[in-house]
């Protein structure tokens, strides 16, 4: 998927551990790990809001669009 989650970068910038973030935004460590490793299929606005609030950043700092190497945008059709 061409959407990259830069949660680990933001955590490093804020010198915060994943477990601490998990406690502060009230989301399980397992779910945050799924998000951090890029296995998540979607993110709720409410989650994004909490992440931005605690990490003091913008959504664009966490999510990044990077097209695949072969130029495919990998858009799934319904």
């Amino acid at each position: 998927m061409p959407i990259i989650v830069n949660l680990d970068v933001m955590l490093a910038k804020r010198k915060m551990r994943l477990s601490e973030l998990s406690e502060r935004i009230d989301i399980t460590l397992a779910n945050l790990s799924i998000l951090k490793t890029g296995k998540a299929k979607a993110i709720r606005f409410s989650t994004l809001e909490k992440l931005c609030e605690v990490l003091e950043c913008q959504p664009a700092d966490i999510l990044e669009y990077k097209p695949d190497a072969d130029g495919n945008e990998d858009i799934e059709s319904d």
Partner: protein
Amino acid sequence: MHSDNTSTAIKKTAFWLNLLILGTLALSLGEMMFTFASDIPVTLSINGEFWTRPISGFEAGDRVVLVTLISLGKLLWIGVLYQFWTLCSLYKRNQIFTVANARCFKHTGVILVMIAVVEVALVPAIGGYLMYRAIIPKMPDIKYALLFNLDTLVPGVFFWLIARIMECAAAMKDESELTI
């Protein structure tokens, strides 16, 4: 997400259904044994007249072929029971919307359609075999009005549809679980 009460109810129903399936399986096997043991006559209509011969009146090889042809529908039905058994086992393990469940529904649909095909082909198959073995002089009369039995074809196709719906449900559940 379903509640614990619903989950318990599903597990309980699946348990009782498993027992019912075991009972049905025993009865189906009993019926097949009875078919072997009771020496039922094979009756066909040839040129408007009845041709009949008990199973014991055939040679051993012919007897095996005929009993297999007659029991084919029952054997397939046992396959349906096995699919239901697998489904119940998955439900007992709390796996409600999964690809494995969808596969069970699909297999059930395919087997039910196969039962419909076997029922339609039974008389021509028995007639063709007996004619090939020169036991009967010509093919039996085939009454087309009675030949097409849609009793299992409709549920077969319906189970196929359910399988597709279950596949969609499994994909939606997967997506929902991976939405953070």
